[in-house]
């Protein structure tokens, strides 16, 4: 019997959330109460593989954000297959969560939430993204703090895109870095540090032109970081993964790239402040 060891209330949640997930993701290669892999210290209540690059796993638990999800998070994040994880719980558990503290923690850690009421009505409260790509909102907000208002707006838009399409999100973050480099180049052109129209070239070429100059002698580390970023993350979005391992790797690199972009933006912002270079970014 499926979910035979569950209480009636928990079984209702398990069956109803399973039905919802079947509707949502097709229930392909569905497994109940079985581990995903020996490398992951967790047996979800059920999991399925809707396509060749995603596993959706659900933990039915009456305690919001249980220890087992915290334990599993690290293994899932480093597993060679993107996994999106949901917790399913009775609606009253969610409603009784004081100030939604635990529900918010769950979301901040990248887990989705499904609730089921006594009548069996099921609802996805928070959507999950594969843990390997998840950037906690709290971490993102901290990284935004040193940036100007205009940069914050641009990065917030990139972060929103990142949740929908991780590659496009990274590309949007990359475009902010490129725009900052172009601003610095235009300022250098105006001051005769580099030849005119240097700013029309590609980001890597601009940095190569700026770095050897005396005026940028003290900013080579920041420029080097931007150069590395342009090289490493420029084409990720356009490469479609050929299998689950590549998909997981792409997610990890996109996440790494997005966080790197935030860090580089902070450094370039400091360079611009010291040079008196205005930030002209739309």
């Amino acid at each position: 019997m499926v979910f035979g060891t569950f209480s009636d209330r928990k079984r209702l949640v398990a069956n109803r959330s399973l039905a919802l997930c079947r509707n949502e993701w097709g229930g392909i290669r569905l497994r109940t109460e079985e581990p995903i892999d020996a490398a992951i210290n967790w047996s979800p209540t059920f999991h399925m593989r809707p396509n060749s690059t995603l596993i959706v796993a659900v933990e039915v638990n009456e305690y919001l954000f249980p220890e087992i999800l915290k334990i599993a998070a690290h293994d899932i994040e480093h597993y060679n297959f993107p996994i999106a994880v949901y917790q399913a719980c009775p609606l009253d558990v969610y409603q009784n969560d004081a100030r939604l503290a635990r529900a918010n923690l769950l979301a901040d850690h990248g887990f989705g939430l499904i609730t089921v009421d006594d009548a069996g009505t099921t609802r996805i409260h928070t959507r999950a993204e594969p843990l390997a790509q998840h950037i906690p909102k709290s971490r993102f907000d901290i990284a935004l703090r040193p940036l100007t208002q205009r940069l914050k707006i641009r990065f917030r838009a990139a972060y929103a895109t990142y949740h929908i399409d991780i590659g496009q999100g990274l590309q949007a973050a990359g475009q902010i870095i490129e725009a900052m480099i172009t601003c610095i180049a235009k300022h250098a052109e105006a001051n005769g540090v580099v030849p005119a129209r240097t700013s029309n070239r590609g980001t890597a070429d601009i940095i190569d032109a700026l770095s050897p100059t005396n005026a940028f002698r003290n900013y080579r580390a920041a420029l080097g970081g931007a150069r590395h970023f342009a090289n490493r993350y420029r084409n990720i979005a356009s490469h479609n993964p050929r299998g689950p391992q590549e998909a997981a790797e792409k997610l990890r690199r996109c996440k790494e790239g997005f966080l790197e972009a935030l860090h580089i933006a902070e450094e370039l912002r400091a360079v611009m402040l010291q040079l008196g270079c205005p930030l002209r970014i739309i």
Partner: protein
Amino acid sequence: MADILKEIAPTKIERNPDNPRIFFRDEEMDTLTASIRRYGIQVPITVYAEGKHYVLIDGERRWRCAKKLNLESMPALIREKPSRLRNILLMFNIHALREQWDYLTIARKLPDVIELFKKENSGRTPTEVEQSELTGLTRGQIRRCGLLLELPKKYRETLEEELSLPKHFQKLSEDFFIEMERALKTVQNRVPSAIKNLDSARDALIKKFRKETIKNITDFRMLSKIATSVKRLGVKESKAREALKGIFDPNNKTSIEQVFAEQFELKFDERRVILSADSIYDFLETSLEDQAAVSVSDKLRKSLSRLNRLIERFLKS
């Protein structure tokens, strides 16, 4: 056969169908999961071999956590397969000495113990003392289980539903039903005319408790006192009946505490004072007869003088 300690894959273990424990609350399991993850399984579970599998005797929570944590193996003590009675009694005794199960858990399995005992003892029903010796439970605990067992199915299901909830969501506890049933039994014995339909009375009390008209489960003891007041205090049965009917009416907001305080508490206090006064009277009279009054302590003399002054004031008022 001696017990063998072995590492066994949790997937090779099955739960014991006779395990009385049916409630595994997520919140409690969560704490154990974290502990096992951090420190491992410190105490081996106990199992017996059955074909290619093993069946649990003790350690279902640890086993569930090990499965949830996808552990490759867990330490287990393998014992010889026990008889069914011994199997149940082993589980009872393990838990009587350690963390106690819910009473309902025990109550559901106690009839099996009695039946199996009868089979092995030419149809003789075990006495309460024997049940206590077999299960490792006290006689009080067995009696409490009996009260839960006698609950009609509807209320047992209500209680089961409550017990399956996380602790902080539980409103009606086993103690609630035990206290309520004790009080209702007293009322039925002493003022039977107050309860026309026992289930209606139960429903009313449950409703009032859920709405916090009845605030505490110990209030049911006052309900018993109201019922016993007829015989113990000479209260008119009609008065007690009307008071009880008000409490059993689901449509008013009359609480047990309020009825007791307004109509019966003073009488119980009076009875208590009379008993105390009688006791003082007996002591003083005996002391005078024995001519021991001269040897009583100053402290008692002072206390009696103070009491004497107060009694005189009270009687003149």
